[in-house]
């Protein structure tokens, strides 16, 4: 059984987000790029499954859509433990375009389980995973917080409003993964970092796909008014404000 983990490269979450060219482009100076946190958790779980011989998982590949600069993020994933990687050599215009590119690659290379993070922390779309499954006309399970593979049989835990469901699904399928899938992201070892340098990255040129959406301009959120402090000895004042001024209780 082969697992593919789709990874997105995003600005480190503590980065100060700034824009250039009349707020139409992200200012990439001083940005440290990291693997999108949910994708990192997916990769961790995929590697745990591969470590468990009874799962039948033989390999873990990562796939990414991005220009050469994103190779650093791919090498990080290889250092964490992925066996090999795929890069589609293009900018990511929108989720539809990215998912279409990944679906093209998956058609050429066969995978049984395709894992995607539920959201990327740049465009917060929650779209790519579901789109890949529809491009490939294969099942998808979203809000996945657990995945168990035993002798090629897959059991998924799916979060629902106020609870969870246990679901079976035949391969190939797309798992759209959220918090809970793995406890903590796996960290690259020194040996992993050395080995990553020689692991193969297969390069694909993009297919002709027309994006459906376009970001025209970015805006910074309105600045927040100053916090009003209340005497810790008299929290009653807070309750009165919440009741009478903001009217939330």
């Amino acid at each position, binding site marked *: 059984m082969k697992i593919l983990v789709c990874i997105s490269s995003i600005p480190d979450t503590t980065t100060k987000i700034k824009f250039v060219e009349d707020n139409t482009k992200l200012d990439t100076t001083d940005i440290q790029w990291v693997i999108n946190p949910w994708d990192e958790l997916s990769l961790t779980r995929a590697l745990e499954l591969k470590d468990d011989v009874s799962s039948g998982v033989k390999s873990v590949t990562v796939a990414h859509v991005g220009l050469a600069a994103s190779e650093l993020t791919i090498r990080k994933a290889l250092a964490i433990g992925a066996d090999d990687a795929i890069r589609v050599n293009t900018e990511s215009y929108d*989720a539809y375009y990215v998912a279409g590119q990944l679906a093209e690659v998956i058609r050429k290379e066969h995978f049984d389980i395709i894992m995607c993070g539920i959201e990327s922390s740049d465009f917060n779309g929650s779209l790519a995973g*579901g789109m890949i499954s529809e491009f490939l006309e294969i099942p998808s399970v979203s809000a996945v917080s657990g995945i168990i593979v035993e002798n090629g049989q897959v059991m998924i835990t799916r979060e629902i409003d106020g609870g969870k469901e*246990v*679901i079976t699904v035949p391969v190939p399928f797309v798992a759209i993964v959220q918090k809970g899938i793995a406890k903590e992201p796996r960290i690259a070892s020194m040996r992993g970092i050395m080995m990553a340098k020689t692991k193969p990255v297969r390069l694909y040129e993009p297919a002709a796909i027309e994006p459906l959406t376009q970001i*025209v301009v970015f805006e910074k959120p309105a600045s927040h008014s100053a916090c009003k402090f209340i005497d810790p000895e008299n929290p009653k004042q807070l309750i009165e404000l919440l009741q009478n001024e903001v009217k*939330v209780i």
Partner: protein
Amino acid sequence: MSVLVYTENWDGKFKKLTYELVSYAFGVAEMLKTELIALSIGNMDRNELMKLGDYGAGKIINITNDQLLSLDNQVYTSTIAEVAMKEGVEVIVISNNNAGKALAPRLSVRLKAGVGSGVSKLPLCINPFTVYKKTYSGNAYAHVVIKSNIKILTLAQNSFVLNETANNSSIENMNVTIDSSSVKTEVKDVQKQTGKILLTDAEIVVSGGRGMKSPDNWGPIEELAELLGAATACSRPVADEGWRPIGEHTGQTGKIIAPNLYIAVGISGAIQHLAGISGSKCIVAINTDKDAPIFEAAEYGIIGDAFKVLPKLIEAVKEIKS
């Protein structure tokens, strides 16, 4: 060229988020000067369905089919797409909740429809069709043009006000044929929490962080939540340590919530935590550290020891409730 809103139900009932969604979709339909059609899947009482009309749905389509008892993303996508094609819809509105996130991207590819995801206000413009959405986890917003003929909008929860509009609505029962072999996923087991207010539905949330020092100290947080009719939440370290269930983790990688009131107790307010709560209408922070970043996001703050402040706060709430 109408607007279609997909309305999920929970054991045959709609929730406030359903009516927010219908109110929003009606707003979009008005901008486009067209009719709003609501789609409900599942066995629904007529009176419950008619409530969709109170928020602007002109036509209410109800589909019942044994193959639609659990959410199979492919079968649901086919069903919603079939309705969209038959009705010639221009815009589809879905919640940005778990089910919406599962269905919107599949519908997008099926119908070649661009998605504006997690929107919290009406489109900025209908020609070109431009939506306003959160990016970089709330550190920026973007104006996004959807270029396709059909557009899909997913609405962030608790972000749009209810708008009652008297409408002469009619219910239409629609039949669909679904071959059982097309249902690929099978639900083997369901575990549901009962009696608790869901974090994503809650209008008030009381949340605890590492400042609570130990899982044994959650009593006052739970008491305050219960008094306020609030849900409880927590920060990431608390969930990671196993002090509280993972489902309570609020923040960038946990739940993103937008309650009317968020009370953060002993939470420093790391940027990742703020990303999950920045949609809250009013944030109250209680923390011993006056420099904690949570105070920059908060409307009201108390610098003090949670173990001393909480009992006083609880007393004050009891007083106003009595």
